[in-house]
């Protein structure tokens, strides 16, 4: 491979005697640096397979979990290859970081930080162009003509002077024997037929996902396979003390019960006997090191910390002096623990014969999962193959720094012994009560308004760090976890003196990135507070923001959304008010305007959200639109309803009855405009989400409902 990541420190994944050492750089939330590789030769054989039947199969290094990379990556190849879209397929790449690394992560194969398209744009276009050149050369040699006299269009190679033509399949084998051209010329974007064209390609996975034939991890089956469910501790930081499996083993269909480091595994011939067996299991837990505080106590502790000075992430000017002048404005925002709750709960399938293991599941960071399985089973990473399957959502849940699912899966296989395939399945209760939450955060904000202008801004952030102590700790600098304050440590607005400081709070409650990472809370805190300050200063929410902004792309989406919505002030007009928010995340810019009224039940009713996005080149505009629609729905549902409260350390919600999800009647109308751009593409899996909650809150303020200081907006006492 001719690729080098650009100047990012990195180490190969190593599975050493004592510890798993992975050098990672700037993934996910901190991925501000360009991860795009330098242009160079790409072996198309690693990414493209052309069949004798003319089919073009694109081998995808990024997991398809709904965000559309199968279609997007295939579009890049098909564009440069001039393939016929009807013959294009996608399949997942095997775990092999040397070939399939995410350039944003170093030599690590994985998906996250809305980076799939950004880090593949050059690579897969080069692969497609190289494959095209090799097919053309093979055809030219066969026909005895100069390659330059051939043309390719929609999967057909033509020699116009002689009228000869052939489809790809005819020359696929011959092309495969040719050397990879050292240099290829990519298309001028002006001549793109697929990239950036609206609805020219349809999603590759739509049909299989509409007729039940799409295969997910939970659908895996094999002769002799056992289904495994695990009884895990009821509270965070507890460990297994002892267990009694006698009654569980009496359940028809239960085959074995084994202790794992995460709990007690029940093996059965199917899911129902496994669940019944787990219900009969008696497990005792050592809770001496467990978190026993409830959320309310934790909120109070976090609030206490927010009143003290934290580690300064960024500051300029004399903030304390500025806050002493003019009118002081204060706000506090409290964000709950949130579960990701992907529709397909965590699951995995593995076969192990004592020497080699083959795992099939929705692996989001294949290199970490592969190394972890190898370590548990005591074999080399090369002896572990991973087939990445379609995942029923993730929202961050499957991107595990500690690879806890892969670890539990491998332990389950090891405990029952070689030769027994196992399928591990988490239930919804396991999922929602099982931690790895978006951390509980408290923001304390203070600002001053003097003579109609903002004179000072101070933001103290308190929450847990899921980076510290994880394989991603390399992202930390000077004790600062950048994912905690991204979006708050640098803001668009000229606010006079500025300071953003953070406290890392401690708890055994496990936490993890959650769709849009730090922006889940910083987007809300910053965009609500600027709105509050502008209101105090007597300025319009849109014009006031624009007047304080130097970032042309942020201003661009803000102007575009104002135009789309026909912005004429926040209102309310006829009982409906409008709120606005603009957030940059993962180098994409998104502005939204929400139209909200007070429902008969007193709760906010969101009628419509207008949205403008700038993602650079929008490779598949309709996939971009879909991700924005979904991001808005996900953001709104959690802002309105979602919380995992702890009572004496134990999650007080377990399933969708109490962990409320947005439903169809609560989904607003959505209208999206994609700002034309020739910048390199950036992601959209996450950036649609952060502006939604603050836009709605800012509209609520104009309805006299206030900007909720505590999320979710609808809290059950």
């Amino acid at each position, binding site marked *: 491979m001719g690729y080098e990541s650009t100047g990012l420190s990195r180490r190969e994944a190593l599975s050493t005697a004592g510890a798993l050492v992975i050098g990672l750089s700037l993934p996910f939330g901190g991925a501000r640096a360009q991860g795009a590789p330098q242009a160079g030769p790409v072996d198309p054989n690693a990414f493209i397979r052309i069949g004798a039947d003319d089919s073009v199969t694109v081998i995808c290094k990024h997991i398809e979990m*709904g965000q559309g990379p199968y279609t997007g990556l295939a579009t890049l190849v098909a564009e440069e290859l001039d393939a016929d879209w009807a013959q294009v397929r996608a399949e997942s790449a095997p775990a092999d970081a040397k070939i399939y690394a995410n350039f944003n992560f170093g030599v690590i194969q994985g998906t996250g930080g809305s980076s799939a398209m950004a880090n593949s744009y050059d690579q897969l276009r080069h692969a497609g162009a190289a494959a095209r050149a090799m097919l053309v050369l093979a055809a030219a040699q066969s026909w005895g003509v100069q390659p330059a006299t051939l043309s390719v269009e929609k999967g057909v190679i033509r020699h116009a002077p002689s009228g000869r033509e052939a489809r790809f399949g005819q020359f696929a084998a011959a092309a495969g024997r040719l050397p990879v051209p050292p240099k290829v010329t990519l298309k001028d974007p002006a001549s793109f037929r697929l990239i950036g064209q609206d609805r020219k390609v349809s999603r590759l996975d739509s049909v299989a996902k509409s007729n*039940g*034939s799409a295969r*997910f991890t939970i659908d895996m089956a094999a002769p002799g396979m056992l289904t495994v469910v695990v009884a895990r501790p009821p509270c965070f930081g507890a460990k297994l003390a002892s267990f009694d499996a006698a009654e569980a083993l009496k359940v028809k269909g239960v085959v074995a019960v084994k202790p794992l480091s995460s709990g007690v595994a029940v093996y059965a011939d199917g899911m129902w006997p496994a669940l019944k067996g787990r219900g009969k299991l008696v497990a005792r837990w050592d809770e001496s090191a467990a978190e026993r505080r409830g959320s309310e106590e934790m909120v109070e502790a976090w609030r206490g910390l927010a009143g003290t000075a934290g580690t300064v992430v960024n500051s300029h000017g004399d903030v304390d002096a500025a806050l002493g002048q003019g009118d002081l404005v204060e706000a506090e925002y409290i964000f709950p623990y949130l579960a990701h709750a992907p529709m397909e709960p965590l699951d995995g399938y593995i076969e192990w014969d004592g020497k080699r293991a083959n795992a099939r599941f929705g692996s989001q960071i294949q290199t970490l999962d592969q190394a972890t399985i190898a370590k548990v089973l005591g074999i080399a990473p090369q002896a572990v193959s991973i087939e990445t399957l379609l995942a029923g959502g993730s929202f961050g849940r499957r991107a595990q720094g500690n690879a806890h699912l892969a670890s539990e899966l491998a332990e389950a296989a090891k405990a029952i012994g070689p030769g027994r395939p196992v399928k591990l399945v988490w239930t919804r209760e396991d999922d929602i009560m099982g931690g790895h939450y978006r951390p509980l955060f408290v923001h304390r904000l203070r600002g001053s308004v003097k003579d109609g202008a903002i004179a000072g801004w101070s933001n103290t952030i308190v929450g847990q760090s899921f980076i510290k102590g994880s394989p991603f700790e390399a992202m930390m600098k000077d004790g600062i976890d950048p994912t905690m304050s991204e979006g708050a440590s640098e803001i668009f607005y000229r606010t006079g003196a500025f300071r953003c400081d953070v406290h890392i709070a401690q708890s055994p409650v496990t936490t993890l990135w959650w769709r849009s990472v730090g922006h889940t809370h910083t987007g809300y805190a910053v965009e609500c507070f600027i709105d509050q300050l502008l209101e105090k200063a007597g300025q319009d929410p849109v014009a006031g923001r624009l007047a304080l902004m130097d970032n042309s792309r942020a201003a661009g989406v803000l102007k575009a959304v104002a135009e789309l919505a026909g912005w004429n002030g926040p209102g309310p007009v006829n009982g409906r008010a409008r709120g606005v928010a603009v957030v940059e995340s993962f180098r994409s810019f998104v502005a939204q305007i929400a139209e909200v009224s007070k429902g008969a039940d007193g709760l906010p009713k969101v009628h419509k959200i207008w949205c403008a996005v700038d993602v650079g080149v929008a490779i598949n505009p309709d996939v971009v639109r879909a991700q924005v629609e979904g991001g808005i729905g996900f953001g709104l549902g959690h802002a309105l309803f979602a919380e995992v409260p702890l009572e004496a350390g134990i999650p007080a919600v377990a399933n969708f009855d109490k962990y409320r999800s947005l439903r169809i009647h609560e989904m607003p109308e959505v209208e999206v405009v994609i700002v034309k751009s020739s910048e390199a593409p950036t992601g959209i899996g996450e950036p649609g989400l952060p502006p939604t909650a603050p836009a709605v809150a800012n509209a609520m303020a104009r309805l006299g409902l206030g900007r909720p200081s505590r999320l979710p907006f609808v809290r059950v006492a």
Partner: protein
Amino acid sequence: MPYSITVNGAVREVDVDPDTPLLWVIRDNLGLTGTKFGCGVAQCGACTVHVDGQPRRSCALPVSRLGNRQVTTIEGADGPEAKAVQAAWAARDVPQCGYCQSGQVMSAIALLREVKKPDDKAIDLAMNGNICRCATYVRIRAAIHDAAKALEA
């Protein structure tokens, strides 16, 4: 206990405990995996099948209570409404992760068999038991309208 159940028009014999939910019989015993597990407590609709033509949450229906009623899963979905719904789903690129969509499609088919031209309110009523965590609701609504139009033609 041995049970004889009718799924997608075929009589199938299974030997399971009486409290086994239809969902797990369909998936684990019959190998029909299009019907999905999402919550196990009839809250999300991922497991929706038709029982005598009516949409039912198979995760909360014990096999012993099925009797001789006819079960249809996504694999057996057929007829003009099924074809129209699935065509509309693909044409609109409704699915994202796709995991909930078998259940969404089964609920939508049942709706269009009852109401030829559902308005938004009817769609809300018929579909609000089906959660989509990807929030594909905008497109689900549009695709149901598309399918209704296609059936009219």
